[in-house]
């Protein structure tokens, strides 16, 4: 925990599902900006050449046998981070939305003056943020941000951001409890983190447009998103956590494996 940021072992987890057009550029950029961090691409059951291109670009690739969604991919990544004793893990999306240049600032906030366990790279944190969202999608984001801010006792403006850094404590929680359900990888995982007593904070970032554009602007889809977000949030809030995930490997077992690995 002590020592400069350079002593930290950082794992960058890149969940990728059918991202063959974007993956090479994303990996090259991460390599150029943060050369001393380890890079783990979780191939989430892609049917295209994502895994092959990621390997060619020099990343370690962990191939899931079928598509699990971002939640499953990220829990795999957190398990890898825990077992290999990383000090920090960060999620960077394969589509190039997350600018790795912010990584240094996010990592600096980790275990900084506010003792943060999780730092979320957040949009909408500054008034001049170019990323604009309107209508029901915006309302959903505002509602989610408000509820989670109350829960985490801090101001959060963008809880659906996947761009986030976790320290050892957060990694060990997420290695066991990282929901694979709708919005589970962002919203519910933050609820779990807050309930586990982790300190959550945010750092303003600017996100880029996706390399392979897919973001929908249909008002019907935005309304459906609003309702699904509300349902996901309510479920996350009322769930009896952590007994809901009795089937997962227990945290203690994972830590045992991790310490065994370190001891060898």
């Amino acid at each position, binding site marked *: 925990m002590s020592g400069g940021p350079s002593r930290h072992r950082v794992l960058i987890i890149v969940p990728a599902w059918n991202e063959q057009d974007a993956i090479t550029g994303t990996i090259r950029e991460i390599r150029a900006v943060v050369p001393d961090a380890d890079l783990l691409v979780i191939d989430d059951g892609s049917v295209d050449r994502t895994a092959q291109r990621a390997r*060619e670009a020099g990343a370690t690739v962990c191939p899931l046998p079928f598509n699990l969604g971002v939640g499953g991919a990220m829990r795999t990544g957190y398990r*890898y981070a825990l077992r290999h004793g990383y000090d920090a893990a960060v999620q960077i999306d394969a589509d190039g939305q997350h600018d790795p240049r912010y990584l240094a600032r996010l990592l600096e906030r980790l275990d900084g003056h506010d003792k943060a366990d999780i730092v979320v790279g957040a949009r909408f944190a500054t008034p001049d943020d170019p990323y604009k969202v309107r209508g029901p999608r915006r309302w959903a984001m505002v509602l989610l941000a408000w509820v989670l801010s109350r829960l985490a006792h801090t101001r959060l403006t963008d809880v659906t951001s996947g761009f986030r850094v976790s320290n050892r404590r957060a990694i060990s929680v997420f290695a066991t409890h990282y929901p694979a359900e709708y919005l589970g990888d962002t919203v519910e995982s933050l609820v779990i983190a807050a309930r586990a007593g982790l300190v959550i904070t945010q750092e303003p970032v600017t996100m880029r447009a996706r390399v392979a554009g897919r973001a929908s602007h249909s008002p019907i889809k935005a309304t459906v998103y609003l309702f699904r977000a509300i349902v996901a949030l309510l479920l996350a809030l009322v769930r009896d956590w952590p007994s809901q*995930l009795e*089937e997962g490997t227990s945290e203690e077992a994972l830590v045992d494996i991790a310490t065994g690995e370190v001891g060898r």
Partner: protein
Amino acid sequence: MSGVTILGLTGSVLILLALFEMMRRHRLREKYALIWALVALAIVTVAAFPSLLIRVSEAIGLEVPANLLFFVASMVIMVLTLQHSSELGRLEERTRTLAEEIALLRLEIDEHRHATGGVRPVEPTDERSE
């Protein structure tokens, strides 16, 4: 013996036989078989003694005894479906955990092979289509 009674008895006996046969062939685990056995026995009882149904519905104050049958039947089906949903959820969670573990193990094997000077996993054990 009325036609309705024969129909009911035949149906319930068929269910019991199917249940027994499935258990014998290891096609049904006993935790599900128990519930279905109770259901089948209840059907046999009601089919053999329809007066039972009529007396119970009179005691509750139902005018049409069939309504009691429908109500109980729909409740039983709902409970069974709910149980299946919950079992399905648990299975999904287990499958997910297994998939994650397999991915991590595959990665570990790849790294191990690479470290021991084996074939470099450029085109590895990927049986997926390109």
